[in-house]
């Protein structure tokens, strides 16, 4: 098997306030889609920022991030710019992430023009991509300002702009969270289709387990700054390896069933710097926790083609399956 | 929906000025400024009696003599003790701005709240009107009015107040509009409380922290403007000891190498104005606007 396109190993990030990422490891092959799921404070956004070298100035990162074999942290100058055009990012709130006083065409072609592409050609390419994402009358749109477009259209513009430099990896940080459900479905469909067409790798951040499963081959689950499970998406929901994943899956209300009471996970999600230094961060809220869970550092166990950070994983096989009965 | 809304008693947001801990959250700078202001106010009231020496009779022999024992700031252009003149001068220097702020606030609040309450045509007219009247800078209006009504503090202060009204009204109108759209106002209306009562008993008190902050800032501006007008000879008239007047009458000393009287008066103005600016800005931050 060829080396992965993106390989994160042992990534630990600390801010003055505390540790935000603890020994995070991921890998992503070319053309593959990986979902990164977690609640607020789990560290998923911070992981993406670390990968794209957008960490805040006071952050200290250790560990390794390799893109196409090259260590990302060591890049600078033209190599860094080349990296940035090979790895594109789509952000959560398009209205905040697009300059409101510049036209759409200006926004879209900026990266290309910085590479030396002529303005006319850049605009032509931008127009073509707008059509691909389902925005008609591209020429008129390119002349408009962001406030003249709706949130859903702006997000499509952002996606189109990200694809202009023909990236091999797309990092999508909760791209549909700020949109309403119908628009969400449309944008997801566009993302999925474009990814397959271009053979592009996708790292898709979301707090919604099912959304990740919809377009990603594999899903990674984060809790309190650590990756607690990585598994094939189609089996993750019904056959999770980690109690947290099981609890997440069970907590989501299913429209086709009636339940007497919503299942919530007791307690509240911890952010990385609230996590205890030793033992599993989820232990206080876990119904299967034992003494061993609270003391030692928890290593990653490989099981059934997936990875999990749970010492009781083997013992709990079969008990974590979400039963509907 | 809050519990009180369900029980029918409207809960108005508490942005009233707290009496106890009125300076809470203003920081060291805010507290220091408040101390300076209180001191200045004290001197404004009692200055004339605190002054150790006579402040009126000229004594040409002593003109511009430098600091000697008992006269830490020396003598002014007419041989009078500078420190005494400064202490006595605090009164007109502070009363003028007080009047300006009071008048412009009174009228400005009325316009702002009435316009925010009625909305629609009334609001549009008032806003347009204010936009048009904004054309007059304060000092210009004061000069014009002293040309018509004669030089003196009252004419200048009233003119300045009129010039400040559009600014006050504009700032407060925005805040009043926001307040007016709060749910508790609708609750009160539904209960049959009259518009005037709602404005006076609820909206205005809830704007009080913003009003106090703006008043403090404007006091500083008014002080600068009035001192400038007195400096021009169009406001307070000599021989009244007023800081602006003192700067102008002792200006000739600067060129002769005796800068102390004029600069001492200038320093008084600056210190008090800075105090008002700093406190006003802190209060504004705290009021959350």
């Amino acid at each position, binding site marked *: 098997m060829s080396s992965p396109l993106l390989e994160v190993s042992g990534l630990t990030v600390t801010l003055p306030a505390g540790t935000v990422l603890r020994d995070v490891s991921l890998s992503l092959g070319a053309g593959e889609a990986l979902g990164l799921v977690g609640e607020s404070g789990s560290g998923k956004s911070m992981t993406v920022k670390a990968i794209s070298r957008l960490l805040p100035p006071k952050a200290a990162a250790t560990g390794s991030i390799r893109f196409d074999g090259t260590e990302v942290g060591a890049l600078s100058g033209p190599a860094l710019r*080349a990296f940035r055009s090979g790895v594109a990012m789509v952000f959560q709130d398009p209205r905040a*992430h697009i300059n409101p006083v510049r036209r759409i065409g200006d926004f879209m072609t*900026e990266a290309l023009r910085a590479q030396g592409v002529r303005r006319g050609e850049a605009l032509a390419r931008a127009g073509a991509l707008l059509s691909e994402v389902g925005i008609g009358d591209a020429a008129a749109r390119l002349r408009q300002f962001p406030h003249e477009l709706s949130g859903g259209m702006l997000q499509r513009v952002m996606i189109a702009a990200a694809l202009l430099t023909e990236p091999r990896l797309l990092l999508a940080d909760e791209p549909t969270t700020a949109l309403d459900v119908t628009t969400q479905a449309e944008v997801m469909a566009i993302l999925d289709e474009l990814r397959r067409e271009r053979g592009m790798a996708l790292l898709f951040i979301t707090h919604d387990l099912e959304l990740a499963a919809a377009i990603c081959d594999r899903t990674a689950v984060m809790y309190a700054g650590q990756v607690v499970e990585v598994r094939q998406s189609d089996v993750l929901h019904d056959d999770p390896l980690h109690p947290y994943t099981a609890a997440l899956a069970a907590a989501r209300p299913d429209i086709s069933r009636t339940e007497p009471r919503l299942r919530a996970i007791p307690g509240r999600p911890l952010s990385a710097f609230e996590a205890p230094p030793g033992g599993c961060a989820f232990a206080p809220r876990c119904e299967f926790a034992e003494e061993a869970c609270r003391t030692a550092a928890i290593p990653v166990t490989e099981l059934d083609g997936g990875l999990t950070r749970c010492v009781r994983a083997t013992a709990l096989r079969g008990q974590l399956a979400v039963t509907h009965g | 929906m809050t519990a009180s809304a369900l029980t029918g008693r409207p809960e108005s947001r508490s942005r009233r000025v707290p009496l106890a801990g009125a300076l809470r959250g203003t920081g060291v700078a805010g507290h220091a400024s408040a101390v300076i202001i209180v001191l200045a106010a004290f001197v404004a009231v009692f200055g004339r009696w605190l002054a150790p020496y006579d402040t009126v009779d000229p004594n040409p022999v002593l003109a511009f003599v430098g600091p000697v024992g008992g006269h830490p700031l020396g003598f002014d252009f007419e041989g009078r003790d500078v420190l005494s003149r400064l202490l006595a001068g605090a009164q007109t220097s502070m009363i003028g701005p007080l009047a300006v702020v009071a008048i412009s606030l009174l009228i400005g609040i009325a316009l702002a709240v009435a316009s925010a309450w009625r909305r629609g045509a009334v609001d549009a007219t008032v806003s347009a009107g204010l936009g048009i009247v904004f054309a007059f800078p304060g000092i210009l209006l004061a000069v014009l009015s*002293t040309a018509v009504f004669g030089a003196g503090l009252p004419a200048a202060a009233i003119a300045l107040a009129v010039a400040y009204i559009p600014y006050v009204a504009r700032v407060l109108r925005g805040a009043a509009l926001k307040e007016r759209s709060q749910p508790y106002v609708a609750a009160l209306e539904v209960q049959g409380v009259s518009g005037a009562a709602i404005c006076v008993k609820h909206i205005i008190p809830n704007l009080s922290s913003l009003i106090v902050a703006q008043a403090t800032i404007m006091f500083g501006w008014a002080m600068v403007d009035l001192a*400038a007008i007195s400096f021009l000879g169009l406001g307070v008239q000599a021989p009244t000891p007023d800081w602006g007047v003192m700067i102008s009458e002792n200006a000739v000393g600067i060129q002769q190498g005796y800068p102390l009287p004029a600069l001492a008066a200038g320093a008084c103005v*600056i210190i008090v104005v800075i105090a008002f600016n700093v406190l006003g800005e802190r209060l504004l931050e705290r009021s959350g606007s």
Partner: protein
Amino acid sequence: MTRWRFLARRLAMLVASLLVASFVIFSAVQVAPGSALSALTGGRALPAASVAALSARYHLNDPFFEQYWYWLDNVLHGNLGTSIEWRENVTTLMRSLAGTTAGLVLYAAVIIVVLGVGLGVASGLRPGGWLDSSVLVATAVSAAVPSFIAAMVLIAVFAVQLGWFPPLGNGSGFGDTIWHLTLPAVALAVSSLAIVARVTRAAVREEAGREHVQTAVSRGIPYRHIVSRHILRNAAIPITTVAGITIASLIAVDAVVETAFSINGLGSLLVQAAEDKDLAVVQGISLVLVAAFVVINLVVDLLYAVLDPRVVLGTAAR
């Protein structure tokens, strides 16, 4: 709303402002204590022929609004009346002084924009640095220093003590005038410069922290482009507004500075005329100054609309 409707609306407001201002200035004569005639003569005793001439010229026997109309008509034809004190045409008097005042205000405006914006940008792009801290301290103090006090300090230090600049007067010839007007321009600019520097610094810092700047960084846009096309371009909106407003306010404060430095300009003539109750001069100069003030405010509004497309075109999402 299209750009043209916006422009038309603003121009209409400009005309309305000028009309209202001219009306207020005109009414000054009427509301003065005593009769309009005594106001115009400033309480002086004049020969009967002069009095008759005044009455005729100001149409003092006609109804109020007709008087206003005649006066306005005269003004628009450049006829601002005669100075009681100087026995000269007001327009002639003003014309010779207008250049000095305009030059002084322009000089101060240049200082404010170049130094104020320059310092603000430099410290805003490097927050926490030594430049940033010094700018913060210096502006905190100087923002509160009124121009006439700054004038006194500048004269005391740079004119009397160090002798680098003349303490008063206009100067003759271009270079000499600039030398004479330097201290006054600085006095005029000091507090405005501090305000502009602070607002610029705050605006630059705020824009630098915005998410769309992050987007540009994530796409590998070179730093200098990020600064010019995203940070400064966006910060230009509040900066232009504040710079415009402070420059407009210079018009009124200019009178004080001219008096402090004994400069012959429109401002000092205005103050002199107010003391002399020479109403024709006061009215004439007030009109010009108010007109300048209103026009500058209009230019600021228009610049704002050009810089921020959300203003004119509205925020309708399609």
